[in-house]
């Protein structure tokens, strides 16, 4: 039987994968993917816990996150395109212009 903890473990694993991506990747596009992965990991956890408690609020929240993630991607990708057109690269090591 697949219980809550299985879902949460899967969610934690996916979240960690996303986090590793955020930490290790240098390409902005990949960073975006990694954050999406993290968001979806959280969605899984929300849906699972919601089902566990028989409370729909968590699932509603997951929908909200999907909607926001979609719009965020739309805006973010637009910015990435502009950035690429301007600098010809999406590598963060080459984009470091605000050095303290």
């Amino acid at each position: 039987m697949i219980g809550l903890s299985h879902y949460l473990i899967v969610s934690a694993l996916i979240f960690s994968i996303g986090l590793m991506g955020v930490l290790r990747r240098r390409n902005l596009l990949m960073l975006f993917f990694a954050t999406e992965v993290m968001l979806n990991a959280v969605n899984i956890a929300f849906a699972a816990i919601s089902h566990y408690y028989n409370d729909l609020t968590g699932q509603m929240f997951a929908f909200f996150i999907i909607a926001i993630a979609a719009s965020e991607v739309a805006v973010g990708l637009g910015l990435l395109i502009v950035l690429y057109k301007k600098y010809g690269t999406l590598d963060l090591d080459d984009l470091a212009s605000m050095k303290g």
Partner: protein
Amino acid sequence: MENLVYIALFAPFVSSMFAALFGMSPRQTFVGIIASSLLFISFAASATLAFHVYSTGTAVHVTMMEWISAGDLTIPFGFLVDQVSVTMMTVVTLVSTVVHIYSIGYMDHDKSFNRFFSYLSAFVFSMMILVMSDNFAGLFIGWEGVGVCSWLLIGFWYHKADVTREENPSISPSWAANEAFIVNRIADLGMLVGIFIIYWNVGSLQYDVVFADLPNLSSSVLNAAALALFIGAMGKSAQFPLHTWLTDAMEGPTPVSALIHAATMVTAGVFLVIRANPIFSMTPEVSFFIAALGTFVAFFAASMALVNRDLKRIIAFSTLSQLGYMFAAAGLGAYWIALFHLAAHAFFKALLFLGAGNVMHAMDDELDIFKMGGLKKAMRWTWGYMGLASLALAGIFPFAGFFSKDAIIETAFNEGTYVLWAVLVLTAGMTAFYSFRQVFLTFHGDERYKEAGIHPHEMYKFVLIGMAPLAILAVIAGFFMGGFQTFVTKLLPDYVMSDHTHHLVLWLTLIVSAFAVGGIFLAYRKYYKGLKRDMELENSFIYKLLANQYYIPNFYEAFITKPYAMLSEMMWKDVDMKIVDATVDGIAKFLYKSGDSSRKMQTGNLSNYLNWMAVGAVLLLVIAAISAMLG
């Protein structure tokens, strides 16, 4: 009547504010004229009030508004016009009016003419608050206001540079102003402590409440309050050992000296003792101390005046001496006599100073009487005024000083304090000697000013006429003594001589007069014909001691000013710089360094920032976990 009180009080204030409007602009005669008129209005209101109080025998008490109201403490802006304060108001405004008119002539060539009138009127306003307030807090406000205005006026010619003490004993106007202010600050602390003691024990600062509650207080509290208040009075009235500022205050323009000495400042201390007489009458030890100190100062100041060569300083020492007389009378319980001497003294002392101002004006600001002589020819009016004032000061019948000073000396005899009596009689002789030494050296004898190529000239006519009221009062004020006594003793405790003294009064008067006439005669013998300097005498130890004011200024400088400056420097360099400043600097340096090193985090690389963010998130998680486990 209420309106008159406000007019008397606020006319000088309006005058000050009006003159201040033109403070930065060049000399405008109308400023002086309007200021003088407003002062005259104040005088007229005061005189009307005096007549009202005299005829009805009741005091006018007004409360303008609540001033401080906090918890149990309520201090209103209340003004009390009774027999004592109305006497002071009339004297103050009369002398001030004359001084204002005089200043129009005297400050004629000064570029800060308008500013001068602004300060002068503010001075009078402060003094009016001081005398009219119906509580100790208002008195203190006036007290401090007088201090500030004296600082402004003594240092009026602040641009003059400091010189050595040998060249000018008061160093410079700004130095003298600071000295006056600081010495008064020391005394004001005593005054403040006295006010606190009263409030602590009575719970009010209103005169009537405080005085009604006095019988319930223990004698130690009363003694402490009386002593602390008297320390305040010692500062303002320049009693030993806080007297040095008074002669140095001569650095101010001469009308200021007249105002300080006759009306607006030094009399404040005597006024305080008279005003708080219920406290002082219940503390005989403190009162006797006041009398003894007053007598000592009378003699001490007169001795310094004997040899001084500076015209204004001689008059300043005579003020000091006369203040000593007033304190002697007040300390012996003869408050009304002290107040009478205060009023009489105000008239002739103001006249003396204004006369000295005329001489200064004529002599191109030369003050050394050894360089004058024979000025009578050029300055008849001034000679007359100064002569009259000196006769009054010396206590010659029938001038004002005769009656008031004689009454004080009789009081000392009546109280059985024969030592004080003897010293006061001797001082009366010395007073006569130095006053006439100054008159003869200035106005008679050989014309020594010619060597310096000075062409003396008489003061403007309107100034001389303006001085006339003072001259008249210096002559006739004494005849109002009886009326004055019945007037003020409605409020002040009466003081009458015992029968024993009464029998001897003629003899006592004769003795005092003999000393006074003897002093004048001695001065006549020595100085009338001209100045013959006796170098042997001038080089003697006593002469030098007196001429250097008993070396007290030097003593203060060596044992108080310099060690204090050294201590301050040590505090600055060792304590402030090395501990306080170093701590503050250390904190700043630490923050600066830590910022410098953590700046390296800011690489501009988004990836690094994300890593830091993750570190932060993990850190927060760890903290949350730990606190969850502990909680």
